[in-house]
Each structure stands twice: as structure tokens, then as C-alpha cells.
């Protein structure tokens, strides 16, 4: 599989680990470090999947997700939200915003890879 994945997270080390993981899976990776640039990147490059962190400066992950889903043209972009918050209400909020999946940090790399594969194969 060779898809385009955008990693949106403000924590540099997490970005490094996600980048490594996605590259290992054979995808092309691009990075955004805050909300606005994430949205811009999505609009610009139309990635197949976005690994979207919730807590980001500028715009929260939820807001980005909402904006993407509001845009018809971006319907093909899958969104996997990542957050340190794992309460049911937050997960529900994520799905309500239109995320395709929600994973809590710290995540298992195996599970994340699994979920990514799942999302990208159901094209």
C-alpha cells in the first residue's frame, strides 16, 4: 500500500515516532505542527489519511476535523484522532465531529498500524 499520510501533532517526538511508523508501513508522510497549517495541508495535498492530534495550538483537532468534514471536496480524507483524553464523552465527541477513528495516547504501535491499514483499505 502506498498512501499519503499527514501527521498533525505539535509534539516533536511524537511526530518522529509516527513518521517512522508510517514510513515503515510504506506510506508517504507529511507533517503539520499546528491546527491552521494542518488544515491548510489537508486542503492542499489531499492526503488519504490524517493522524490528527486533538491538543494543538491555534486550532484544536476537533475544529480541524469539523472543518474538513464540512468541506465536500475533502470527503475522501480519512481522519484518525489521537488524544491523551480517553473519556467516553471525548470519544463520542470525536465521532460526532466526523472522525473515522479515535485512539488514546499512549497507543500501541501495533494497534495504530492495524487501524491505519483498516481505514486505508476501506477506500
Amino acid at each position, binding site marked *: 500500500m502506498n498512501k499519503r499520510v499527514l501527521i498533525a501533532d505539535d*509534539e516533536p*517526538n511524537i511526530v518522529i*515516532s509516527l513518521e517512522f511508523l508510517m514510513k*515503515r508501513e510504506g506510506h508517504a508522510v507529511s507533517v503539520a505542527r499546528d491546527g491552521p497549517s494542518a488544515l491548510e495541508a489537508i486542503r492542499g495535498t489531499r492526503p488519504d489519511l490524517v493522524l490528527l492530534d486533538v491538543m494543538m*495550538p491555534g486550532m484544536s483537532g476537533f475544529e480541524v476535523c469539523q472543518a474538513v468534514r464540512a468541506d465536500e471536496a475533502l470527503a475522501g480524507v480519512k481522519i484518525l484522532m489521537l488524544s*491523551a483524553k480517553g473519556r467516553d464523552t471525548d470519544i463520542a465527541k470525536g465521532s460526532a465531529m466526523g472522525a473515522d477513528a479515535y485512539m488514546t495516547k*499512549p497507543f500501541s*504501535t501495533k494497534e495504530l498500524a492495524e487501524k491505519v491499514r483498516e481505514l486505508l483499505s476501506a477506500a
Partner: protein
Amino acid sequence: MLSAPLVLAASFAYLLMLFGVAHWADRRARAGRSVIGNAWVYTLSMGVYCTAWTYFGSIGRAASSGLWFLPIYLGPTLAMLLAGSLLRKMIRIARTYRITSIADFIASRYGKSRTLAALVTLIALVGILPYVALQLKAIASGLTVLTGTHGGSGPWWSDSTLYIALALAGFTVAFGTRHLDTSERHEGMVAAIAFESVVKLLAFLAIGMFVCWGLFDGPGDIFARAAAQPALSGLSGLGGESKFAGGQWFALTLLAMLSVIFLPRQFQVMVVENVDERHVQRATWAFPAYLLLINLFVLPIALGGLLHFGVGGADPETFVLSLPLANGQSLLALVAFIGGLSAATGMVIVEAIAVSTMVSNDLVMPLLLRLRHRASSDLSGVPLAVRRVVIVALLLLGYLYFRVAGEAYALVSIGLISFAAVAQFAPALLGGMYWKGGTRAGALAGLLAGFALWSWTLLLPSIAKSGWLAIGFLTDGPFGIALLRPEQLLGLSGLDSLTHALLWSLLANAGLYVAVSLARAPSAREATQALLFVDVFQRSAGAPVFWRGRARLAELQQLATRFLGAEPAQRLFADYARRAGLAGVERIAPDAQLVQHVETQLAGAIGSASARAVMASVVEEEPLAPEDILRMLDEASQVRALNRQLESLDRLKDDFMSSVTHELRTPLTSIRAFAELMRDDPEMATEQRQQFLGLVVGEAERLSRLVNQVLDMAKIESGHAEWRNDQIDLCELIAHAVQTTAEVFRERGAVVSVQQPESVPTLHADRDRLLQVLLNLLSNAAKFVPAGSGRVEVRLTVDARAAQVEVADNGPGVPVDQQQLVFEKFRQGGDAANRPQGTGLGLPISRQIVEHFGGRMWLRSEPGRGACFAFELPWTRQQEETGA
């Protein structure tokens, strides 16, 4: 001998006086100056426990078995010792959930079950009837002795006892059923009861003193003479012939202990009529003192009578009358009769009111509602009418029982049979107050079993012994089965019938209660009621709201009108609107709270079980799952009771917690991810591995720094930090701090200069903590100064009041809108891309430290022109609390 008209006239005069007292008290209550809001009145009202049985029965029992009358009064004494906790809990529960009778109490605890309410009412009714008859019998005997006419025999229409019974019924109706008070309080009645407690005590003491010092030379004389006669000498002892004597004494004490709480009249005066919980404290010892006083002369009177008339000369039960009469003291005899009458009327009035309330709320109204639930007829007059009918019926039935069965059986036994009946409430009620596991099924099973065994072992034998049933089943067992003999069940012989009955009935009752309760988990409704009852002291603001559904205001108003009457209903809604601050009744939102309120008011009129049923018919209720109910309970008790400040503090705490967990999870995420990546790829390039490992170490360090700071923060904020205060030289401290951070500044190519006065007074504070603050400010400055050309200035100034330290840097400064934010937890300046290693907690902690010493910290900055963090510390501070 006195003339019958005289006695009757005196009796009615006394009743009128009681009426007057009650009327006066009611008027005072309406004027807002209640006379019963007094611990002594409360205590005296409990004296209703002493009925005509005390006047006649005790003496009779003392005359035949000596001190065996005493456990009936020792039991209540012991019970009152527990009053502080037990009684108060009952009062609190009753007050909070508007419980108006013992049937209501039990039914409410087990999920507002109408079946339980009806069962308890029936048991109470059946149990109390003989006791009422006993009072009438006592009056009849008294009349006989006093006047020579035979009260209690002859055609019923000429039986003065009947007229006294009717008079009592009228009196009770007049004072118990004037209006429907949703709290079921009867101020007039309580005042009258307290008054008559005084009357009967004084009368009894008068007789006692007369017998001791009028007929003999003091109690010593009586005892000496009794000891001289072999027939009487045993009466001062325990007469321990039976090997079960100990058990019997114990059983009697236990029985009395339970009865003093569970007799409907006791529950009424102790719980329902209680005005102030704190009165219980006085009653704890004052009521036993009353009991002691009234029993002081029982044994002397009994012995004196036996000595005077000889054994078998006269009926011991009427010694209080026959002794004065036989010695020419007619007035005293009349006084004694009035005392006995007083005791009897007190019991009858309170008992009748209590029982009629139960019958109305828990037997009749539910039936009526089931039959006519669709009709919108006005039922507001019905509860009162029902009560009146029940009171009259109760007295008439009591009279009937007395005529039919009262002769054959001594007074003594009848009273104890009633005690044993109400004792059956004990497992369900006491269990319900302290054990959350008690279920409705358990209570039902226990009550049914207890009642059944009571009937079998006590009631039926007593009827048989009065000649109304073939005695065969008593001696040989039913159908000849010896094991089922009512007074030697399963072969247990040697016990007197009361102890025997008590043993079996309570054993079965309690046993089944526990066993059946444990057999199945409580339902959602039962569990919540259990919580409300058992934990009543832990919950504050009243009963929470359980309704979740919709109702229409008009329907609620109709309902209220139907059961309370038009005017009370209007008042109810008007009050509610006013308290909610609404312009008018139409504005009231028919929400759960209103529904709850209306239901509570209705419960006062028709009982809580019926009220709930009736409300259910108009409210579209959404079924509540147990978790919902528990959540509502939680919300209701916590949120409503706490003030808004506490609420917002809670929110702050939650924010902090979620920030902390978020901050902790972030480094953990990297650590885990890198570790897994390295594990899953054994072939990873060494360089890559080294990079990752380096990052892992870095994040681990970050994590532990964070944890330490969070702990620090928590300790300081909660006041648990340790402060070691000392005399500090600020100059020296600043120099130390600068030296410590010298390396960091050198690396960034920055210069630090220090400005301070010549001499500085010493400051009393914690050196390490202040050093922490300085290091924090300096390292922040180091992070933000431009590389190569950074300049940091540390300025110390002092004045009479305080010392001020400034740390100014020439970095980018802080934008105005962020200047407050930097002091908040987990906020960091700068942008994320080049955020220096930090936790975001340094400044908040520093500020806390400074504020702990009575100072303050602030930021002055213009964007582009650097930032200056400053703090001041007063020389002397008002310490709220020192941790040192």
C-alpha cells in the same frame, strides 16, 4: 362507695379540662407561639406509654409475681439510651421524607410498597384492638369498685363504659381530625397528653404515699410485715422456680424495649409529633426517670393491699381504688380513678389517631383509588371522613371485644399480647434503617411469618381461653398433631406463653427477613430508598428528585384539588411559584421538581404509596435505570448542597487533573512508541536506534521532572508542603542563584548583571523555596533571550514594607493577551516548534511560593522590548497557616 353520677360527672369534667388544654394549645400554635416546642413537654408526651395497665395491671402482676412487673419499664429505659442515635435517625428520616405513620415508614423504605403498608396497618389494627379493650375494661372495673354499679355488664345501652367509649371517640375526632396537616402534627393532642402524664403521675404518687405512710409506717413497715407472712415473702424476690426465669425476664425486657418504639402511639408522639430533634437528648434520661417515679410505689401498694385485705380478699388490680375507699378516703379514690381514666384516655386518643391515619392512608385510600381512579371526583373530604369513621369504629370494636372476651382474661396478658404483635415490626424497620440489603420481599416474608406465628401462639390461645374456640387444639394440637401445639410449638416447653411466642415469632420473622432479602438483589427503587434511609445523616438538602418525565401543569393542579381541596391546592401552587420567584402560577414549569413537591404534599393526605400511584397516573414517567437513579442521587445531594464556589473549584480541579494526565501521557506516548518501534525492528540501524534511545531518555527525564513538579504543586496548594523557615540574606541568595545558572547563560552567550543595595535586612522564609523561585525566573529568562546578545538584569530593592526582586530580560517579551496566561498551569510561552524543555508548572509554583509568604508576583512586558518578572516579599506577613 361513691355515687355513680358523681363519678361520671367528675370524669366528664376531667375530659372537658383535657379538651380545654388541647384547644388552648392549638390556638397558641396557630398564633405561632407553640407550647409544645419544649423538651419537657416532649418527654411528658412519651408518658402515654403508661396506660391504665400501669395503674391496675402492674399492681395485679406485682401482687402475684412480685417484681415481674418491672421489665416492662426497664425495657423502655434501655431503649431510650439508644434514642440518641436510633430515635434521631427515625425522626430525621420521617421529617425528610414526610412520613406520617409506622406503616408509611416501613412501606416507604421498601420502595413505597402498598402491600407492605396494608400489611403493617392490619397487624397494627389487630394488635391494638385488645389493648383498647383493656383500657375500657380498666375503666369498667374501676367504675364497679368505685360505685358498686357493674360497669361492663348488663344491657349495653345502660353500660356507662359504652358512653365513656363514645365520649372518647368524640374527643379524639375533635382533636385528631380537624384538618389535614401534611405533617400530621397535632399540637393540641400533644399538649393534652403531656398534661395527663403529669396528672397520672401525681395521682399515683399520692396513692403510693397514702398507702405507705397513711396506712402503714412507711415502706419499711410494709416490707417487714410482708416478710413475716410466708405467702407474701417471696414477692420481694424473683421467685426463681422456673429454670427459664432468666430468659423470661430477658424476653419481657426485650419486648418492652421494642414496644416503646413500635406501638403506633409511641411512634406518633416520639417521631411524628417531634418538633425538634434536640429534644431527644432530654428525653433520653427524663423519660426513664418518669417511668421510675411512677413505678416507685407499685410494690408497696401491692403488698399493702395484700396485707390489708388478705390474699384473695380483693382484686389486686383495683387496689389503687379499693385501698383508699376501704379507709374512708373517698376523695383520694376519686383522684385515683381520674388518674386511671387519664391514663386510659391518653392511650386511646393517641392510638386511635395513629391507627386511623394508617388505615386511611394505607388501606382505604389505595382501595378507593384503585376502584375509582379514572373519576375526577373531588376526594378532598374523603381522608378526613375515613379517619373519623375509623376512630369511632375502633372504639366501638374495642368495646365489643371487651364485652365479649375481656372478662376471662386478666388485663396483664392482653397488654403483652399487643406488645408482641407490634414487636413484629422490629426486623423490617430496624433492618431497613441500618441494612441496605433489606428488600421488600424480605420484609413481607418476615412480617407474614411473624404475624402468623403470633396469631397461632398468642392470639388464638387467648381467644380459646376466653371460651370462644374449642380448647382442644390448645392441649392436643390441631388435628391432634402434638408438635404444633400453640403453646409448645415443636415441643419447646417450660416457657411461659409470652416468651415462647416471642421466641418463635421473632426468630421466624428475622430469619426470613434476612434470608429472603439475601435471596435476590434489591430492585432499583428499593436500592435508592435504602440509600435514602440508611444514609439519611450523610445527605443534606432534603429528598432528591426522582422523576424524569413530563406532566401538564393543569393536570397537577387538578390532582391537588382533588385530594387536598381547592383552597389548599391553590395555596400550594402559589407558594411554589413565589418561592421560585415566578410572576404567576401559570409560569411554573411542570418539571420533575414540581412533580416531586406535589407528590410530597399529597403523601401527607393519602400516604406516600397512594400518592406515588396517583402521580404515576398523570405523569408520563420515563423509566429510570439504577445507574440513572444513583447518578441523580449523586447530583442531587452533592451539587445542590455545595455552593457555586465549590462547584467552580471542582471544575478547576478537573481541568487541572485533565491537564496533568494529558501532560503525563504525552512523554509516555513517545517513550512507548519508540520502545515498540525498536522492539519490532531488530534490524534497525544503530544510528537510528541511538537517536530513538536518546529521545526516550529525554522524555523519561521530562516525565519525572513533571511528576515532581506536579507533586510539588499539589503539596503547596493543599497546604501539605513542608516549610523550613530561616533568616535569609537575599543578596547572598541571589548571588547563589546566579552562580548556579551561570553555565546556562554562558552557553547562550548571555550576560547577567545584578543590582542590589548595600545592606539588606534579613527575611524570614524558606531558603530552598525562594531559591527555587529565583532559579525558575532565571532559567525562563535564559530560555527566551536572543542567542548571543542576551542580557538579563536582576534587581533587588527594599523599602520599609517589603523586598522586591525583578528579573528582566531582553527577549521577545510576552504579548499582552498572554500575560495573565503565563501564570496558569501547563501554559508555556513561545511557539510549539521551538518550545524549550519545560513543564509549564514553574511559574505557577513560583507564584504559589511567593504568595505563601504573603507576597505577590507579576509580569511587566512590552512585546519586542523584553519581559520583566517581579515579586515582592513583605518583611512581616500575616500567616494563615505555617507548615513549619
